[in-house]
């Protein structure tokens, strides 16, 4: 399942598909360290995003992961940390 790295492009695609995009935000801009909240994604949007990442990448995200990872960089790092052992195993 987890055959590739979870990238910023993956995250942007999943955000758009699952929760849509705020017209006032340019997701293609430099968003890697921008808070999800300032990007217009509240907790429910993050829950939907987390669910989509889980089923696409075959990982399990704790509830805390989604609340603790406040930026795209933090979430991408967390997901990729989970992907590595899955690939080895």
């Amino acid at each position, binding site marked *: 399942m987890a055959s590739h790295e979870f990238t910023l492009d993956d995250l942007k695609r999943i955000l758009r598909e*699952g929760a*849509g995009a705020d017209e006032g935000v340019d997701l293609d801009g430099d968003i890697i360290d921008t808070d999800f909240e300032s990007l217009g994604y509240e907790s429910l949007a993050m829950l939907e995003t987390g669910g989509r990442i889980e089923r696409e990448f075959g990982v399990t995200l704790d509830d805390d992961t989604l609340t603790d990872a406040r930026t795209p960089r933090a979430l991408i790092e967390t997901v990729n940390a989970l992907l590595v052992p899955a690939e080895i195993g």
Partner: protein
Amino acid sequence: MSGSRVRVAVTGLGVVAPNGLGAEAYWTATRKGTSGIGRVSRFVPDRYPAQLAGEIGEFDAKEHLPGRLLPQTDRMTQLALVAADWAFEDASVRPEELPEFEMGVITASSSGGFEFGQRELQALWSQGSRYVSAYQSFAWFYAVNSGQISIRNGMRGPSGVVVSDQAGGLDAVAQARRQIRRGTRLVMSGAVDASICPWGWVAQMASGRLSTSTDPERAYLPFDAGAHGHVSGEGGALLVLEELEQARARGARHIYGEIAGYGSTLDPRPGSGRPAGLRKAIDLALADAGAAPDEIDVVFADAAAVPELDRIEAAAINDVFGPGAVPVTAPKTMTGRLYSGAAPLDLAAAFLAMRDGVIPPSVGVTPDPEHGLDLVVGQERTAPVRSALVLARGHGGFNSAVVVRSAD
């Protein structure tokens, strides 16, 4: 300050109807007798007994709503959000300029967001629980239109939802009037329903009241000897309600009229032998409005098109007003029955009838003389309209009646 004497006015209309998007488009079509009923196009209806509906054709939610709202809303809610925007615009009210706790949202719903729910249930069944959208937690829900309108417009005053099938559209407006009398400055009220999807369709078929005709012109015939059930539709109307004097003081662009009286009853248990409750609901609404029957210029009928229900409605109208003594119309013959959206749409039509001095027609119907009604058919009728009675009945025995009156 507040109390039962406070007069409550309608200052904005937002309409989404199968025969017109926007109040003026709907009204122009309705005056001309243009129907929005046709073969279901949103799914293939071949295998279902009922194949006609009043569908809203050209509506692209993307053109009207932010991208963040689309994945989390059912079609019903998308239509409602746009209708609310239009109602605010019509009322020349900018909700962001008003204190958020002085505005409320009270809508009715008959079934919730079935299309969204169907999609998620299909995902659950075929792929598993991890494939169900987080937004299913509320997107299907009865209160979702009230909730999303409230969030989008920052309205945090008294809000809620009423679920009493078609009667709910009037019950919501009555509750909105109550909140204004208690001191809320403005309430968005009415209803928009939309569940033309296979799951919604079979749920509607369970009533046993859907017309199985495939001829759009002969499918929904209330008060006709050939009445054989109704055609269902999607849409409705949202209304901006305010205290009349305050609306005048702010220089509201329109004061369509006031919500003058309301009554509601429940039918007795079937087989009890006691009379149906519609007559009593009319009496209560007239008494609440302080109106004598001869002051009512037109009745917008519930128009079930089920022979027994038509008989009950005609008898109630004739008992109150005298046989054939008041013009009766059912513009919903052009939209189908919109469930909770039907009566708010009739309220909008009643206010526009007052504005223009015309009674819109019922289409397709040849009135059965046995009912003894003065049904306005064929084309619109010119007549001064200063007050109107709007009736709505819900499956399960709900009866509601509202008297609206010109505020001049």
